[in-house]
């Protein structure tokens, strides 16, 4: 049998890729020797990049409103920005003014009235309702009481949780304080900053960079605006439906649905679990099946009616891609990474598609040039 020959071109390519891979491994190996230094640099970059990214994403939501006002003759920029800023602060403030006291009242009521019922249920009635049978419940209960595993886990978990919260509290607070300041400066000089960024790009690539930037703004902006709108609509719908079916603490559970909707797939599960468990244990008001059905219908409406209409088909990504991006960006940037995982994944997809399109266009150009010469 004749052996298949490897062409010089393929051989060169293989050697090139091998050399690049070895070089990358070498660089990683050297970089690992200075891990403390890199951690220090990465921490500094992370501290700076989180508020900047937040400001950029928020600007994508707010900037179209400013542009619309300017189109209608409300100007100069400072004035239209001022109107949008005051309105946003007023809406958020009114929301908090109305929602926070009510939610606090609901939480207080829960601890005063229902918490004891839940504790009693866990200590007494859970044995009869245990899904795997009373024998397994007894074995688990004996193991927990004999080995003291629960208290030791809680002893280590609670300090870790408090430590984690205090560690992330300062970056979150600094981001919240920095965000309006960064946003005002960014929106005031939106065009100037875009021009400055463009001037850094080599002259040959200016056109491509401008198109990529515009595509990124369009795609990610549409996604974010849609997601914020969906959060508000779903929160309102869930609150009304929960109240209609007679669920206690409907405002808290409804707001939870709206807030957690920002996390694709996981958000709705996170929001559905507390009311289902509550209705199961409290045994007053609607049954857990009704609450589950309501959540399933909400998910159906969100996924099949609102999302395609608001966010559009161009941004629809495969669930696996979204889940991987949540895990990846969540481990990289924490809570902010989980929230912005989908727009970040969408941005990467836009860049990748743009690169492929350019490559394809270049190949066609090269072929056309070869044919003419």
């Amino acid at each position, binding site marked *: 049998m004749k052996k298949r020959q490897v062409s010089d071109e393929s051989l060169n390519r293989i050697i090139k890729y091998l050399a690049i891979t070895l070089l990358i491994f070498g660089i990683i190996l050297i970089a690992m020797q200075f891990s403390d230094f890199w951690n220090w640099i990465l921490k500094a970059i992370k501290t700076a990049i989180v508020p900047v990214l937040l400001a950029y994403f928020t600007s994508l939501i707010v900037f179209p409103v400013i542009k619309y006002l300017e189109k209608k003759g409300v100007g100069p920029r400072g004035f239209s920005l001022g109107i949008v800023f005051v309105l946003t602060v007023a809406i958020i403030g009114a929301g908090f003014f*109305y929602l926070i006291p009510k939610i606090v009242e609901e939480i207080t009521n829960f601890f005063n009235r229902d918490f004891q019922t839940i504790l009693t249920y866990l200590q007494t009635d859970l044995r009869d309702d245990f899904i795997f049978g009373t024998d397994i419940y007894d074995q688990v209960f004996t193991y927990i009481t004999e080995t003291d595993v629960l208290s030791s886990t809680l002893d280590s978990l609670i300090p870790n949780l408090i430590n984690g919260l205090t560690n992330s509290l300062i970056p979150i607070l600094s981001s919240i304080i920095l965000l309006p300041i960064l946003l005002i400066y960014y929106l005031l000089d939106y065009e100037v900053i875009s021009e400055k960024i463009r001037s850094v790009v080599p002259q040959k690539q200016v056109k491509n960079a401008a198109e990529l930037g515009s595509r990124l703004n369009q795609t990610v902006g549409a996604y974010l605006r849609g997601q914020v709108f969906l959060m508000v*609509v779903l929160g*309102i*719908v869930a*609150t*009304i*439906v929960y*109240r*209609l*079916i*007679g669920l206690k603490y409907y405002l808290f559970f409804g707001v939870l649905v709206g807030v957690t909707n920002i996390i694709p797939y996981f958000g709705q599960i996170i929001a559905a679990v507390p009311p289902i468990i509550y209705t199961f244990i409290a045994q007053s008001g*609607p049954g857990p099946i*009704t609450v589950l*059905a*309501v959540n399933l*219908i909400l998910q159906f*409406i969100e996924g*099949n*009616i*609102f999302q*395609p*209409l*608001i966010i559009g*088909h161009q941004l629809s990504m495969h669930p696996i891609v979204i889940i991987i991006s949540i895990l990846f960006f969540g481990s990289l940037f924490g809570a902010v990474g989980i929230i912005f995982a989908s727009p970040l994944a969408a941005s990467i997809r836009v860049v990748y598609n743009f690169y492929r399109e350019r490559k394809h266009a270049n190949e066609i150009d090269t072929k056309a040039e070869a044919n003419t010469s």
Partner: protein
Amino acid sequence: MIKKNRPKISTQFEINAIVFYANMVLFLPLVLVITYLFEIDKHLNINDFMFWTLIANFVILITGTIILAINRDRLRRKVKVTYKDEYFYLIFLFVFGLLGFVVIYDNMGGNRAYIANILIVLFAGLLYLAIFLGRRYFNLDYIKNR
């Protein structure tokens, strides 16, 4: 040759009329949803409130119909390929209107045990209507596009 089964092209007038009359049919439920969300219904006589809302609804209906009739010729000359924004608005109306009907049922003292059943039946009906209107007038084949 003119194709058979070609999509019907709706004018802006038809779309505006559909959206406006849907708005009018769902006006009372929509207002009641807002009152229900902010718990305003606990502070006022709901029957009086519904009566005055219906009066306002009637006045807006007459005014809107006159405005539509005045602008009829101008709107009939306007045509778009699809009416996505208007359709989205209609869906939005349907969702909150659906909840509004259930709020009316609740305000009228209906049994809360049947609310989930009523919601599902109304939801199915409105979903069918939305798909039908999308195909027939808004040039948006909703299921096919997915």
